[in-house]
C-alpha cells in the first residue's frame, strides 16, 4: 500500500521534497488530463497545472481533508482552466481539442509510433467524432494512474453517480464509430504467419 496523501502532505509541509515529488507523480497526469479535457493547448494547459501546484504549496497547512487531496486538486485545476478559457474567449477564437489533432493524416509522431500501431491511431482519431462531453470525460479518465470517480466528479463538476453510466454511453458510441471490437480482438496474441 502506498503512502497516503495525508502523510505525504504533512511531510511536504515540513519541506520533504521526496514526499512532494510522490504527490506530483500521483496527480500531475490527472491535472494535465483535466486541462486537455477542457481543450487547453500546451502552454495554457501547462499554466493551469502549474497554478494548481502553486496553490497547493500555498495551502499545504490548510487542506482540511487531506484524504480528499485528489478532489481538491481536480477542483482547483478545473477553476484554473475555466479562468484561462474565459480570458482566451475575450482574446481569440475558441480553442480546439489540440490533443486529438496530434495524428494528422493518421501519422503517429515518431516516438509514439514505437508504442502504437495503426489500430490505436484509428481509435484515437475516432474520439474526435464524440460529443464534447464524452471527449472531456474520457480524456480525464485516461489519466495515469486511473483517477477515482470522486476526483473525476470534482474535475468535471458532475455528479459522481452519473460518471459510470456516461462513461458507458461514451465508450459504446466510440465502439460504433471506430468498430473498436474489431480493433481490440485483432490485437489478441501474436500469431505466427504461416
Amino acid at each position, binding site marked *: 500500500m502506498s503512502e497516503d496523501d495525508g502523510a505525504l502532505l504533512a511531510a*511536504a509541509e515540513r*519541506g520533504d*521534497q521526496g514526499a*512532494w*515529488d510522490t504527490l*506530483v507523480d500521483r496527480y*500531475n*497526469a490527472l*491535472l*494535465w*488530463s483535466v486541462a*486537455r479535457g477542457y481543450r487547453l493547448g*500546451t502552454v495554457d*494547459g*501547462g*499554466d493551469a*497545472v*502549474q*497554478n494548481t*501546484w*502553486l*496553490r*497547493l*504549496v*500555498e495551502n*499545504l497547512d490548510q487542506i482540511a481533508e487531506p484524504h480528499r487531496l485528489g478532489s481538491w486538486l481536480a477542483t482547483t485545476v478545473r477553476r*484554473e482552466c475555466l*479562468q484561462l478559457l474565459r*480570458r482566451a474567449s475575450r*482574446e481569440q477564437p475558441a480553442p480546439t481539442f489540440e*490533443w486529438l489533432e*496530434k*495524428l494528422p493524416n493518421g501519422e*503517429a*509522431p515518431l*516516438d*509514439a509510433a514505437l*508504442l*502504437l500501431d495503426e489500430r*490505436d491511431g484509428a*481509435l*484515437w482519431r475516432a*474520439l474526435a467524432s464524440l460529443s464534447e462531453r464524452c471527449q472531456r470525460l*474520457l*480524456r480525464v*479518465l*485516461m*489519466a*495515469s494512474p*486511473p483517477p477515482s470517480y470522486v476526483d473525476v466528479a470534482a474535475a468535471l463538476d458532475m455528479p459522481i453517480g452519473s460518471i459510470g453510466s456516461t*462513461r*458507458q454511453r461514451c*465508450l459504446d458510441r*466510440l*465502439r460504433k464509430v471506430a468498430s*473498436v*471490437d474489431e480493433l*481490440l480482438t485483432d490485437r489478441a496474441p501474436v500469431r505466427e504467419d504461416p
Partner: protein
Amino acid sequence: MNQDDRLMDRLRTIAAALDGPPELVGESARAALSTRRLDGELAELVLDTPADTAAVRSDERIRLLAFHAITASLEFQVHQIGARVRIRGLVTGASGEVVVETARQQRSGRIDAGGWFTIDGLSHGLIRLRVRADDGTTVTTRWISV
C-alpha cells in the same frame, strides 16, 4: 476486467504515449515546493474589485486590490492592456522594495519616498507580491490571477 475497462485501458496507454504531461510541466510541478515561504507575514486580501473602466480602451482593464498585514499594507492597481500587465501601488508601513513573483520569474521595484511603486512588463498568470522592507521584514500576498 470487462470490455469497457479493457477499452479504457487501451485509451489510457495511447494517451500516455501521445499526450502525457510535457517534461517541463512535471519539472515545474516538482520545483513548485520551493515557492513555499516560511519567512515573513502573509497579508490578507481585503479588497479585489474591477475599477470603473468606462473611459478606457476595450482591451484595457483595471482592477483594484488591497492586502493588509500587521507590519505593512499594500494597495495596488493591476492595469491590463491586451496581454501586458502593469502594477502600480502604494505601500504603507514599510520602505524598501516590492517584488512581484510569477510562476517563472521575479521583478522588483523600489518603493519611493511617497510609498509608491510601479512594476511593468508582466504578463497574464499567477502573481504574488512581496514587500521586502529595509528593516528585514517581509510581507507576502497570496497568489492572485491576473
